[in-house]
C-alpha cells in the first residue's frame, strides 16, 4: 500500500513546476524570430538586477511584450481548464467530462459575446457573462443527462455534444448579425486563441479568480476521492455531498468562464491533462488537482508554441493543436470505457 504522503505531493509538484519553467524558456526562445537561450538568460539576468532599461527595443518588444504575456495567459488558461475538467469528471462521475465536450466552454463563449454586445466598455462584464453562460449550460446538460432520476453517462455526453452544437450555432448567429462590432474573431470563440493579451485591468482579477477557483476545488480534494466511488458511499463515509458538489460546480464553471473569456474555447485540455496525470501519478485528487494545474499550464504553453511555429509566420489557433491530440484520446477512452 502506497498512500499519498506530503513528501510525494510536494516533490511531484516541484518537478512539474521545473518542467513548466523549461517549457516557458522554450516558448520564449521559439518563434518567427528565434532567440538564443544564452541571450535569454543574459537578459533575464539584467532584468533581475534592475537593468531592464538597457534591453534592446526590438528584443523587449518580442520577448516581454509579445511572447511573455502570451505564455502567462497560456499558463492561466491551461491550469483553469485542466482543473475544471478534473472537477467535472468527479462531479459527473464520467471520465469523458471536459468543459469543451460538455458544451460549458461554448456556453461561456455565448455569455461572453452577449456581455461584449451589451457593455463593450466594461471589461469585467465579459468574464461575468461567461460565468453565467457556463453555469447555465452545465445545469442544462446535467438535467439533460438524467434518466429515471439517475445520471446516465452516455446521455450526459450526448446532451453536452448537442448543447455545444446548439451554442456554436448561436455564436455564428451573433457573430454574423453583429459582425461590425468589436467581438473578436470567429476562430477566437470557436477554437481558442492566446494572441490577444488580457486587458491590464483584468490581469489581477483573472489571477485571483484562478487561484480562488483552484483553491476552492482543492479544499474538496479528499471528498472527491470518495465521490468518484459513488455518491451514496460518499455520504456514508461522512462527505457533505451537497456542499462539495456546489463548490465544485461553481468553481469549475468559474474556471471555464475565466479561460474562455480570456482565450476562447480551447478544447480537450480538461480531458487530456487529467488523464495524462492519472496515468503518470495515479488518480488521487489531492495530487491530481495541483498536478493537473501545472500539467495544463505545460500542455497549453507547448500547444501554443507549436501553433505559433509549425507554419510560421502564419499562426494556427491553439485549439486546433489541442483538438488534434485530444479527439483521438476521447475516442480511445470512449471505446475503452463504454459498454
Amino acid at each position, binding site marked *: 500500500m502506497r498512500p499519498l504522503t506530503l513528501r510525494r505531493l510536494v516533490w511531484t509538484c516541484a518537478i512539474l513546476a521545473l518542467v513548466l519553467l523549461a517549457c516557458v524558456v522554450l516558448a520564449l526562445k521559439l518563434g518567427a524570430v528565434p532567440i538564443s537561450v544564452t541571450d535569454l538568460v543574459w537578459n533575464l539576468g539584467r532584468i533581475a538586477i534592475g537593468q531592464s532599461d538597457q534591453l534592446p527595443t526590438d528584443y523587449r518588444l518580442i520577448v516581454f511584450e509579445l511572447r511573455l504575456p502570451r505564455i502567462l495567459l497560456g499558463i492561466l488558461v491551461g491550469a483553469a481548464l485542466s482543473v475544471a475538467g478534473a472537477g467535472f469528471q468527479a462531479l459527473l462521475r464520467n471520465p469523458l467530462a471536459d468543459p469543451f465536450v460538455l458544451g460549458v466552454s461554448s456556453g461561456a463563449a455565448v455569455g461572453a459575446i452577449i456581455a461584449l454586445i451589451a457593455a463593450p466598455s466594461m471589461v469585467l462584464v465579459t468574464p461575468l457573462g461567461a460565468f453565467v453562460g457556463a453555469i447555465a449550460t452545465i445545469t442544462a446538460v446535467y438535467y439533460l443527462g438524467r434518466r429515471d432520476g439517475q445520471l446516465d453517462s452516455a446521455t450526459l455526453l450526448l446532451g453536452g455534444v448537442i448543447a455545444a452544437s446548439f451554442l456554436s450555432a448561436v455564436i455564428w448567429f451573433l457573430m454574423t448579425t453583429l459582425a461590425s462590432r468589436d467581438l473578436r474573431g470567429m476562430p477566437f470563440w470557436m477554437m481558442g486563441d492566446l494572441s490577444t493579451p488580457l486587458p491590464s485591468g483584468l490581469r489581477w482579477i483573472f489571477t485571483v479568480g484562478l487561484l480562488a477557483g483552484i483553491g476552492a476545488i482543492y479544499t474538496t480534494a*479528499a471528498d472527491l476521492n470518495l465521490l*468518484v466511488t459513488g455518491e451514496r458511499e460518499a455520504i456514508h463515509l*461522512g462527505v457533505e455531498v451537497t456542499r462539495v458538489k456546489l463548490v465544485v460546480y461553481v468553481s469549475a464553471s468559474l474556471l471555464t468562464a475565466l479561460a474562455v473569456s480570456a482565450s476562447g474555447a480551447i478544447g480537450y485540455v480538461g480531458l487530456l491533462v487529467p488523464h495524462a496525470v492519472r496515468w503518470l501519478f495515479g488518480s488521487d485528487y489531492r495530487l491530481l488537482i495541483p498536478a493537473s494545474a501545472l500539467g495544463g499550464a505545460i500542455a497549453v504553453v507547448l500547444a501554443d508554441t507549436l501553433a505559433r511555429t509549425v507554419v510560421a509566420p502564419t499562426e494556427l489557433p491553439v485549439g486546433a493543436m489541442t483538438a488534434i491530440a485530444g479527439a483521438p484520446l476521447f475516442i480511445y477512452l470512449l471505446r475503452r470505457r463504454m459498454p
Partner: protein
Amino acid sequence: MSDRATSTETLHSGDSSSHSGRAVHLTVEQASYAYSPGPGSAPTFTLGTTSFQAHEREMVAILGPNASGKSTLLNLISGTIAPLSGRVELDGQATSSLDPRTRAQRIAMVHQESPLIFPPTAGEFVLQGRYPYGRALRLASEADVAIARGALAQLGGANLVNRPMKALSGGERQRVILARALAQQPSLLLLDEPTLHLDIGAQIELLERLRQLAEENRYIVVVVTHELALAAEFANQVVLLHQGRCLRVGTPAEVYRRELLEQVFEAPLEVELGPAGRPRVTVRVRRRHDAT
C-alpha cells in the same frame, strides 16, 4: 431473545473495534417515513411505524419482498433520512442528528456495488474508510494504514492490498468493500442486500463472516435481505416488512410462520423447526402429477 450458541461457539471473542467498553444499543421506536415526489404532493411510498431494539453482538435481518420498505428502514437507521414520526437512536442519540463525520465514525453502510470510474487499488479503497477520522487533506497516518491492513486481514484479504479493484473477482471485491466499512471502526454495521450478486457458497461465507464480526468487533449488524433461508440461519432477530408495513419483529422461530411467510412472499412454503431451534424454509412446489 435469541440462540447465539450454535453460530458463535467456535469463534474467538477478541475486541479489535475502537469503541469503549460501554454496551452499544440501537433503538427504533415507532419510526415511520413517507417519500414524496415534491413538497406538498402526496407521498408515493410510506413506511408504517416500526419498532425494534438491538444490542452489540447481535445480527438483525430486515426481511421482505421487493418494494416492502427494507431499504427505507435501513436509511432511517443510518441517519441519512430522519423519521417522520418516532425515533431512531444509537446509544440514546438520534442517528439523523449526528453530523456527517461523527455519523461515519459510528455507522458504516455497505451498499450494493457501484461501478468505479477510476479504480484504485484494494488498499487505497480500504483506506477511504479512515476518511471520517482525518483532517483537511486526510493524508493517511501510519495508524490509518495499520487499521486498513488489519481490516483486510480480518476478512482474509491481506494478499489483496496492492491489487487493483478492477482485477478482483466478485467475492474478493465484496471483501474489500466490507473491509472499508470495518476501517471506519463503527459500532453499527449496515448492509443493503449484500448477498445479491453472490453464489450460494459466497452468500453463506459472507453471512458467517458477519456473524463473526458482530461477535469479535462487538458490532450491531443490520442486514437487508430477501434470503429467507439464510436469514433464519444467521440472524438473532428478524424484522418482517410487507408493502411498507412492519408485520412482525422477533427471533426467526417467532417470525417464521408458514401462513405469514406465504402471504408476504406469495409463494407456497414449508417451515419446520431445525435442531438448533432455528426454522428451516423450503419451497413447496406442486407438480402436475402430484395433483392427479
